[in-house]
């Protein structure tokens, strides 16, 4: 096979050193892979694997303090690393285009979207104004945006996340480049939107015959779109090959570990007999947000939680699943009285906590605890782990010495070294911090845990460990857990029952088997259909 004719891009022994003083010397070290015309190559890896770094190196967009120290990036026979800035400028946008993870921040907030799309053509001297305008309309239509004629005059903030990403894609397609680099383009999007964007990328790739380099951390996405896969770990390429091979017959231990950790519904794992007495009963709970409005204009009213009722027994895990804006997090905040409630009842151990004043509720707080989403912002960076774990008990009247002893005990329980007690959060990794967050919640011996997207920010391998820990603790402590997540796969894996939320309301509730296998509500069906890699079962991979 003649590589020079078929390969579009070859990365050869690329190394990019990091500035001194960081935990490793190279961002990427001696990596090589290639991208052929007309294929989708997925570069997959966890955070810090260096997967985005190579993309930036290809585009010549590395920050000034990072300079490749060796290797070549050969694009259509020419080394991009050897090109001057003006030469690169001519290539960017014309023959190589790129889309990014955050579609809002990637668009200039003060420039109309049509203008931003047209600018690609303008700076490359393509067509006259009228031709460019026609092309913009064409492109916006092509990427599936509604009403291109008026949408091109809109500013980015008026568009939804998915629409913005479509604009980015339209921009990338403007000059029909030979190669498209997509850096986690769906990570910030809801699952249904993600499915649409993935579909769009597949479609345009097929239509234009481009080579697409798709960077992601999600094996589900890989399963959906990849022709070939490159797996990266800490700056090194550990495995590459055809998608089917890598997904189903991973060779490298790291790849195997990753695939094993991908959440998936355990067949026949539904626990129908979970739990005992009813601990929590929510009746017709509602919460409305109002914004803006005045004498002349109407306020915007959003029903974040709309007439929600459910109950929860001891030892049971209820999954609350929904997309962003579905009201699932507001529901969690309502249960913890972190926000006011507009109507309904929250009966905890038979007592309605809605009418209680903050002062009256404070003594009850210890029974209902929360595990937060972001392991980086959920721990006070100025306090030691010991302090973080003892603050709660001390506030609830436990003597300090006793609280400290208990804290050390808890550290062991969540799988951390006792020495962690005197250290600060920044000395720990994300997964470890999330363990601290769990320990903090447990320090008060709660009966109910609300976990709000508690594993969403974690890399998949860490996610699996934390989920395991939670399940383990639940069994030991007979906890009731409300598990809020956007990821149906995770909910399916650990929950006894799943409630699907859509625009503030619970549209469907039941055991995972029922939700997955016999969804009754159209929205549930839509949601399930959008799960990336639905057809691929990681549990069947040869691990």
């Amino acid at each position, binding site marked *: 096979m003649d590589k020079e004719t078929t390969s579009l891009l070859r990365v050869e022994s690329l190394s990019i050193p990091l500035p001194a003083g960081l935990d490793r010397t190279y961002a990427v070290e001696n990596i090589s892979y290639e991208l052929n015309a007309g294929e989708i190559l997925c570069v997959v890896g966890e955070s810090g694997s260096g997967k985005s770094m190579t993309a930036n190196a290809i*585009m010549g*967009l590395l920050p000034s303090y990072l300079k490749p120290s060796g290797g070549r990036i050969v694009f259509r026979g020419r080394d991009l690393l050897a090109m001057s*800035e*003006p030469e*690169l*400028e*001519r*290539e*960017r*946008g*014309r023959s190589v*285009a*790129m889309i*990014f993870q*955050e579609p809002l*921040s*990637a*668009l*200039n*907030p*003060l*420039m109309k979207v049509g203008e931003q799309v047209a*600018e*690609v053509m303008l*700076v*490359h001297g393509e067509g006259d104004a009228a031709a460019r305008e026609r092309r913009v309309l064409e492109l916006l239509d092509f990427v599936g945006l*509604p*009403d291109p004629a*008026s*949408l091109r*005059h*809109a*500013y980015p*903030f*008026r*568009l*939804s996340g998915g*629409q913005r990403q479509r604009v*980015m894609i339209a*921009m990338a397609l403007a000059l029909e480049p030979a190669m498209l680099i997509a850096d986690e383009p769906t990570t910030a999007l809801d699952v249904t939107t993600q499915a649409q964007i993935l579909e769009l990328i597949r479609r345009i790739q097929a239509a234009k015959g481009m080579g697409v380099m798709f960077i992601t951390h999600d094996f589900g996405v890989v399963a959906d779109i990849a022709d070939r896969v490159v797996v990266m770990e800490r700056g090194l390429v550990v495995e590459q090959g055809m998608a089917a091979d890598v997904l189903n017959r991973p060779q490298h231990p790291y790849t195997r570990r990753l695939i094993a950790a991908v959440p998936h519904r355990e067949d026949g794992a539904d626990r129908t007999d979970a739990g005992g007495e009813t601990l929590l009963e929510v009746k017709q709970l509602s919460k409305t947000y109002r*914004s*803006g*409005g*005045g*004498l*002349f*204009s*109407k306020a*915007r009213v959003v029903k974040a939680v709309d007439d929600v009722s459910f109950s929860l027994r001891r030892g049971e895990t209820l999954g609350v699943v929904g997309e962003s804006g579905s009201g699932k997090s507001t529901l969690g905040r309502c249960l913890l009285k972190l926000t006011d409630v507009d109507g309904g009842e929250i009966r905890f151990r038979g007592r309605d906590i809605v009418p209680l004043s903050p002062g009256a509720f404070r003594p009850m707080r210890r029974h209902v605890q929360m595990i937060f989403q972001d392991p980086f912002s959920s721990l006070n960076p100025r306090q030691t782990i010991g302090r973080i774990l003892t603050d709660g008990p001390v506030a609830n009247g436990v003597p300090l010495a006793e609280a400290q002893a208990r804290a050390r005990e808890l550290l062991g329980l969540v799988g951390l070294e006792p020495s962690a007690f005197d250290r600060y959060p920044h000395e720990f990794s994300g997964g470890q911090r999330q363990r601290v967050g769990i320990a903090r919640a447990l320090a008060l011996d709660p009966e109910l845990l609300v976990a709000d997207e508690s594993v969403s920010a974690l890399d998949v391998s860490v996610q699996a460990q934390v989920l395991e820990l939670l399940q383990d603790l639940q069994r030991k402590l007979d906890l009731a857990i409300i598990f809020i997540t956007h990821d149906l796969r995770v909910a399916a894996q650990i929950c006894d029952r799943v409630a699907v939320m859509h625009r503030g309301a619970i549209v469907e509730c039941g055991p995972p088997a029922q939700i997955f296998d016999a969804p009754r509500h159209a929205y549930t069906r839509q949601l399930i259909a959008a799960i990336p890699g639905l057809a691929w079962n990681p549990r069947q991979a040869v691990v």
Partner: protein
Amino acid sequence: MRPPFRSATAGNEPLKTLDFLFQRLIKAAFVVLGVVILNFLLIHLAPGDPAAVMAGEAGAGDEKFIAQLRAQFGLDQPLWWQLVTYLGNVLTGDLGFSYRNNVPVAELIMERLPATLLLTASAFLFSLLLGVVLGVLAAYKRGTLADSLIMTGALIFYATPLFWVALMAVLVFSIHLDWLPPFDMESIGADYTGWARFADIAYHLILPTVTLGLFFTALYTRLTRASMLEVMSLDFVKTARAKGVPKARIIRRHVLRNAVLPVFTFASIQAGQLVGGAVLTETVFAWPGIGRLMFDALLQRDYPVLLGVFLVTAAVVVTVNLVADLLYRIVDPRIEAAG
């Protein structure tokens, strides 16, 4: 159904703007009222009896004379009643009577206000324009000699007392070089009209403007540079680079507007501070504005004038901020929707 996207015309944005205006006007009125009450109380609770001061200035005065003065200016009334009366009068546009000059305060202020507005407005424009230009230049040429020179200059003027600059400016440009007039707003007795007068005033305006504006120029230079660098690190700049947009165009078309908007906002909030500086500038340059009027009124315990100046200053500052907010809504499309 949800609209395909939030169109600019489909929503109730024009009504929102009305609402915004209405709310801001109420807020502005409230702030001005608050400023007046605050100052009224401050001034009247402070030691220093204006009647005694007036009597002293008149050359003599016995208890009877002081009592007569007190009655004449309503100073014998309880404080709250004085406040209510004052606020009532202010609502009808009556700012009271100057204790010392025996003329209505409004007249006195209106006579002096244009000079200060002229001075502060030109200092504002001067500092903002020059500051932004220098800041952009420094950011564009980051790390070069030009950058270092601009930023060193900015640092120095940021640390130099305004009055000191004024004194030195007079010494150098008026006395030694004899290029610019050291004081006054126009050539007195020359009776210029039309363009000649305009040119004459502009000529007299140069030194005070530059002096008053230099500190703020330094400030805006620093802000603009920092803001430019921050915007240059944002994602959409990377997008633009990925599109193949050359650096100069990125700065011009993408970075500049995004970077300068916050500087403008900050500047509009700071605009009022120029009046404080004007007290010093007007003193050195014999500029017949309200800064000096305020200082004189203060030293003479001419409280109605002092209060009037504060009222007018607050009103002007609040108006400037309001106009800035409205302009901002026009320039930055995001604000409108945010409400």
